[in-house]
Structures are given as structure tokens and as C-alpha cells.
């Protein structure tokens, strides 16, 4: 325990900053991120326009691919990782994601029910006939 008292990393790392790496390693990191992002993008565009896969699975696949690509961007471009010096950045990200999930999920949920319970006037007229 006592030999861990003074570690060489004394502070949290800034978002966007990496731990100490040589220039070559940093460039390789960006290249890997770019290749992964291009692959995921190409897959998204391919899946959206193809008849080869079961059609109802396409929206789910697109959303999964989008989330995966956002993760690739976060790790390889913004350098938000799970290291102990990155805790604050990840916590802020987690809170942001919570709010995003509440806003988008809550809106879609509530407005979907509103449309069901209070259909527009022309639909009500059709129901009465």
C-alpha cells in the first residue's frame, strides 16, 4: 500500500489527452479508429439498402451499429477510456447519457401513448362511422 502512495500519475487525465505515448503509437491509434469507423459506416449504409437480411431487423441493426461507432469515436478519437485517471470524464459522460436517454426515451414513450389515446380529429371521425 505504502509503495503506491506516490504514483507518477498524480492527477486525472484531461478528456482528449492520452497517457504518455510516442507519436507513432498515437498515429496508429487514430488509424485504427478511422478504419473501424469506416467499416461500421460502410456496414450501416450496406444494411440500409440491402434485401439480403430480414427486413424488420434493419432498424435495430442500424441503431446498434450507430452506438458501436459512437463508442469507437469516444475511445479512439476522444480518448475517453476506463483507466483510473479517467474516472471524472467517464462519470460526466455517464450522466450525460442518462439525460439523453431520459429525454429521447421519455419523449418517444409519452408521445407514442398520446397518439394512441388522443388520435387526431380525422381519425376520431373515422372511428365514429
Amino acid at each position: 500500500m505504502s509503495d503506491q502512495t506516490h504514483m507518477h500519475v498524480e492527477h486525472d487525465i484531461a478528456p482528449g489527452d492520452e497517457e504518455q505515448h510516442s507519436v507513432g503509437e498515437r498515429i496508429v491509434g487514430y488509424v485504427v479508429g478511422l478504419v473501424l469507423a469506416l467499416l461500421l459506416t460502410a456496414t450501416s449504409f450496406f444494411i440500409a439498402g440491402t434485401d439480403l437480411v430480414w427486413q424488420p431487423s434493419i432498424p435495430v441493426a442500424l441503431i446498434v451499429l450507430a452506438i458501436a461507432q459512437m463508442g469507437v469515436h469516444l475511445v479512439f478519437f476522444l480518448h475517453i477510456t476506463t483507466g483510473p485517471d479517467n474516472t471524472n470524464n467517464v462519470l460526466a459522460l455517464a450522466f450525460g447519457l442518462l439525460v439523453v436517454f431520459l429525454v429521447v426515451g421519455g419523449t418517444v414513450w409519452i408521445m407514442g401513448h398520446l397518439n394512441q389515446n388522443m388520435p387526431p380529429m380525422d381519425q376520431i371521425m373515422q372511428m365514429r362511422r
Partner: protein
Amino acid sequence: MAMTATVGHAHADPHHIGFVVEHPGPAPKRTVTAYGFWVFLLSDIVMFSCFFAAYAVLVSQTADGPKGSEIFEQRNVAIETVCLLLSSFTCGMASIAADVRNRFWFYLGMAVTCVLGLIFLAIEFKEFADLVARGYGPSRSAFLTAFFSLVGCHGLHVSAGVLWLLTMMAQVFAKGFRADVLRRMMCFALFWHALDIIWVGVFSVVYLLGSGV
């Protein structure tokens, strides 16, 4: 004395992860600045999530106007996406060059980033102008209002990013790689990468999901 040492120890390692810093003091300014900007970016993403939510609610309210599948052109969106992805990469190269204080690669990376950003903006502007010319402007239907506000808001961010990019090149030209200029460069790189993340959501949700509807 022993008492204060214990208290200090508990305070330095509140979660007992064996990572103890006795007197850390204030973090370096680079960390503080970038963290504050990171919090701003997250709030910006929350704002975009409201536009996404509005779009998801209004996407079927076309008021007998065009549906998404009738006005979206996949080829243009693919070109825009590749432009933004490559510009994120060159922006990363420019920030590495700034960290090692290499002017040539910094200017080159930033210039390529700027050109790719401008290509993206030109394609998007042409798409908007075409839609308005065909009578499908933002006032045509609730769907088009939501579409123009979501995609246009991202486009405004990219425009602001291009202006910021040119400012950073001018500042490096005039002031060199000073600590404060490097901090601004770091914030700019975060901003540009975050815009790319939002564009991933835009092309997936608006263009690809919308073309199937």
C-alpha cells in the same frame, strides 16, 4: 498528528482503490480547461438529443408532403459521412503535430480538415437549397421542420467549427505553440470529434432509418 494523517489518508482514497495521492493540489490548467469543455460538449449533446426526440415524434407528420424516403439521397450522405470521418482523422493528426510543435504538419492537418469540412457544408447547403427550391422548405410540414432544425443545427455547429479552426491556425501563426493556444487547440479537437459523434446519430437515425420508411 496520527489523527490528521488518518483523516488525510481516508480523504485521499475515498473509494479504497489503492490509488492514494496525499496532497494532490489543483489539477493542471490543461486538465481543468479540457474537463470544463467536456462538460459543455455533453450539454451540447443533451441539446441535440432534444432535436432528435422532436424528430422522432414528428417524423410521420408529413401533412401530405414528401416522406423522408422521397427526398433523401444516400450517395450524398455517404460522401458527407466520409468527409467528416476523414476530417476527424486529420484533426487528430493536427493535434498530434501541435503537441510535438511541428508547424508544417499542423498547418497541413488543419488545412485538410478545413477543406473536408467545407465540402461537407457545401453538399449540405446544396441539399437544403434543392429542397427549398422544390417547395419542401421547413414550413411545408412538421417532419420537414424537425428535419431542417436537427440537420441544420449540426450544420451550424460545423460552420462554427470551421471558423474556430481558421482562428486556431491564425493564432498558431501569430503566437506560436503557447500553452494557452495549445489548450484552445485541444478544446477544438474535442469539439470536432464530438460533432462527428452527433453526425453518426444523424445519418443513422435521419437518413438511413428514414429512407426505409
